[in-house]
């Protein structure tokens, strides 16, 4: 294979090492191969969890029992949640794009601890497989919801311990990845690349990694405590054993709220790379974006209590958490303004990655603004634990993190595989996904405000219109997802060769061949200025 300059080189995809065939992948410590393995595993699980969601939506197309029993439905939303949260959205962007592009973007040959990186992957794989097995082993799939609220999770006769252990192992994988990335960013930056010359995707990975390292141990120990409670009847949380169920909620959300930022920060990082490239313009407010990532990571630790506004916590703590929740909204708003200002005045090429990034802004705004309704104490009371919350976090997680992932895939696909997908078809898939998404989730905001509770197998007749629209939307959405998948799979098989720099990007990944060679750079580049330099600029330092 030849790159654009005509030099011959061997890409990471064709590299022959000590092992051949599949083993060359399974035992590879190359950050790009590990990133791709994560990608395939996560994509597979994503479509499994999407299918579960589709079954749930079909059940809800009419009130009463439609295609399954309530027990099956309760198992479905639990497993849908566990797979989506613990296997896809929390690790997703940082293990796939973080692994693949973090070292390249900072001018390094690999992460700091390649073997540890491979270990993380196998822990991840083990946890993921266990999560799926919990469906089939023991006394039926867990039916506690992904939040495992005690005492139900202690009393349920289903296979809860297995699922908890899976989540625990996934947590360890996450911690190791976090440590690896922190060290990589501190120690492996190319000469001349100060923190303030680092691209913003690595910045977001950096903020994320700190949350992973500091918050994940809390969920680990909490899940172990539930296991101990179930297995040995030690009373931590179950009032029947002398425990405190609210303590569980605190411990659970002390991790699980920061986990929301573990998933959204890298998403913000991905789109922050895309806007400048497709506008041919430097990022607006580089410092503000970098700082707001750290601010979000920091304040994000202190807002967990807003998940418990109706649980009977004290008046003062409700006030405190409501105030902080509102404050954490501000850095996110600043980022939105910065992204828009980055596009303004540029030379905008509306290719699929930018289309997804713009979709991200729109859906993320709806997610964020509906969050304000939940942050305010009075309105929270009405929408807490309703379909409104379900719609809100799908706007953030799927509309935000999901669309950013799709944007990243379309942005970096030619770099990862050296091939270019069909752009027209990708655009059409975007229209279908975007339409389906909004038809799916917007009605749930409405019925949620009217009082439709979440995790309901059945519903009152007044919610039928909203539920039916939502189900139709889900079918459209999945059609779009399949179109996107087919496009990318077809490209992998017989796509046209992509140039090394199809989008005229200026960050380091676009300065090396596609797909990149084993150690990325022949000569480690020296960094002399801030990233996103597209030509003359008065403000250039």
């Amino acid at each position, binding site marked *: 294979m030849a790159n654009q300059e005509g030099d011959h080189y061997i890409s990471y995809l064709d590299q022959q090492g000590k092992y051949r065939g599949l083993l060359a992948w399974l035992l590879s410590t190359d950050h790009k191969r590990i990133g791709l393995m994560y990608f395939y595993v996560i994509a597979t699980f994503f479509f499994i969890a999407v299918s579960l969601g589709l079954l749930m939506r079909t059940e809800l197309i009419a009130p009463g029992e439609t295609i399954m029993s309530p027990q099956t439905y309760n198992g479905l939303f639990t497993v849908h949640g566990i797979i989506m949260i613990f296997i896809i959205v929390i690790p997703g962007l940082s293990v796939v794009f973080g692994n693949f592009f973090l070292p390249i973007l900072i001018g390094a040959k690999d992460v700091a601890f390649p073997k540890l990186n491979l270990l993380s992957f196998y822990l991840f794989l083990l946890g993921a497989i266990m999560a799926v097995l919990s469906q089939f082993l023991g006394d039926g799939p867990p039916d506690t919801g992904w939040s495992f609220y005690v005492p139900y999770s202690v009393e349920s006769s289903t296979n809860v311990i297995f699922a908890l252990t899976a989540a625990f192992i996934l947590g360890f994988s996450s911690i190791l990845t976090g440590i690896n990335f922190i060290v990589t960013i501190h120690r492996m930056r190319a000469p001349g690349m100060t923190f303030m010359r680092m691209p913003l995707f690595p910045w977001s990975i950096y903020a994320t990694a700190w949350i992973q390292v500091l918050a994940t141990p809390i969920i680990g120990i909490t899940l172990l405590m539930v296991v101990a409670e179930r297995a040995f009847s030690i009373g931590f949380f179950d009032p029947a054993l002398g425990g405190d*169920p609210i303590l569980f909620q605190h411990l659970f959300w002390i991790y699980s709220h920061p986990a929301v930022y573990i998933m959204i920060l890298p998403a913000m990082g991905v789109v922050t790379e895309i806007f400048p490239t497709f506008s041919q*313009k430097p990022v607006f407010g580089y410092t503000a974006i970098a700082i707001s990532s750290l601010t979000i990571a920091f304040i994000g630790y202190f807002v967990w209590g807003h998940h418990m506004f109706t649980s*009977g916590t004290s008046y003062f703590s409700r006030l405190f958490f409501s105030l902080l929740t509102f404050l954490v909204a501000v850095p996110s708003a*600043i980022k939105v303004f910065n992204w828009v200002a980055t596009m303004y005045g540029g030379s905008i090429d509306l290719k699929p990655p930018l289309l997804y990034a713009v979709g991200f802004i729109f859906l993320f705004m709806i997610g964020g603004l509906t969050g*304000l309704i939940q942050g305010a104490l*009075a309105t929270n009371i009405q929408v807490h*634990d309703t379909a409104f919350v379900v719609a809100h976090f799908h706007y953030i997680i799927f509309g935000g993190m999901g669309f950013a992932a799709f944007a990243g895939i379309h942005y970096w696909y030619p770099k990862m595989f050296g091939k270019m997908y069909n752009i027209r078809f990708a655009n059409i898939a975007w229209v279908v996904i975007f339409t389906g998404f909004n038809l799916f989730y917007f009605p749930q905001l409405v019925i949620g405000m009217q009082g439709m509770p979440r995790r309901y197998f059945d519903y009152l007749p007044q919610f039928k219109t909203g539920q039916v629209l939502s189900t139709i939307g889900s079918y459209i959405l999945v059609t779009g997802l399949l179109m996107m998948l087919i496009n990318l799979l077809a490209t992998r098989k017989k796509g046209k060769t992509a140039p090394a720099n199809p989008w005229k990007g200026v960050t380091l990944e676009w300065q090396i061949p596609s797909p990149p060679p084993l150690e990325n750079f022949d000569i480690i580049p020296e960094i002399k200025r801030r990233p996103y330099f597209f*030509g003359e600029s008065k403000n250039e330092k």
Partner: protein
Amino acid sequence: MFSEASNVSAGVDKVFAFIIIISLIFLIGISVFIVYTLVRFRRKKGLKAMQFTDNIKLEIIWTVIPIILVLLMFYYGWIAFAPMRKAPPDAMQVKVIGKMWEWIFDYGNGMTSKELVIPLNKAVRLDLVSEDVNHGFFIPAFRVKEDVVPGYNNYMWFIPQYIGNYEILCTQYCGLLHSNMMSKVRVVDQEEYEKWYADLEKASKIPEAEGLIVLRNTGCLACHSIDGSKLVGPTFKDFYGSERTVIANNTETKVIADDAFISRSVYSPDAEIAAGYNKGLMKSYTDVLKEEDLKKINDYLKTLHE
């Protein structure tokens, strides 16, 4: 435009309106601006991208304005919420018991009801108690909700301001029949309330059938109704002595629901499954129900005919 169903509902709705209006202004404003930018600055020959990177004034403005707006939202949200936590001391008290999967309203002195009946324009304080797992007590029309947590004495209060029936829903996931854990609030005028209360008092003095007590304490009524409504399992109304279609060993047969059949259904429920229901939903009550309990149940079931 704002709901006046309870004393707090209008306050909540005003906060909704305030936040939604500001949100819509931002959402629509920014979206329109993005579309404008995409069109106005689309790539074409001769149009060079500007290369500005900062504008401190602009950044300060768009930091300060959101801070002010969110602080206002916080403030209004708090003001409308504050009265919800200050129950007047003379409020009428009802104990709400949540258990899988029903609500029971305890009016004291052994008087319980399946519905919450309350007089118009009187403050009501509900003390929320759970007998098993977490539940959530939610009256959407009144804009009130509070979790029912075992071991905690949570409460809520409100003043109903319109006569009518309002739904009560469970919002904290509690297992199999979470979505069926519903009840009603009936707001009536003082006169009707007193009449209802007197009837409840009378009813509470009539001793309940022993069989009914066994059924309730064993938890049978969560899945089998006594009023003919369909829950997870068949209703007990008109059940005893009727002809049942069951599936045993994969073949459909008909049996009469007599003592022997009921005994088989209780101790090995999966042997004969009522047509239209699934296997595995009911566990065996072998060590739970004694023969004499079963007899009480059968005696009671015999009375459940029109």
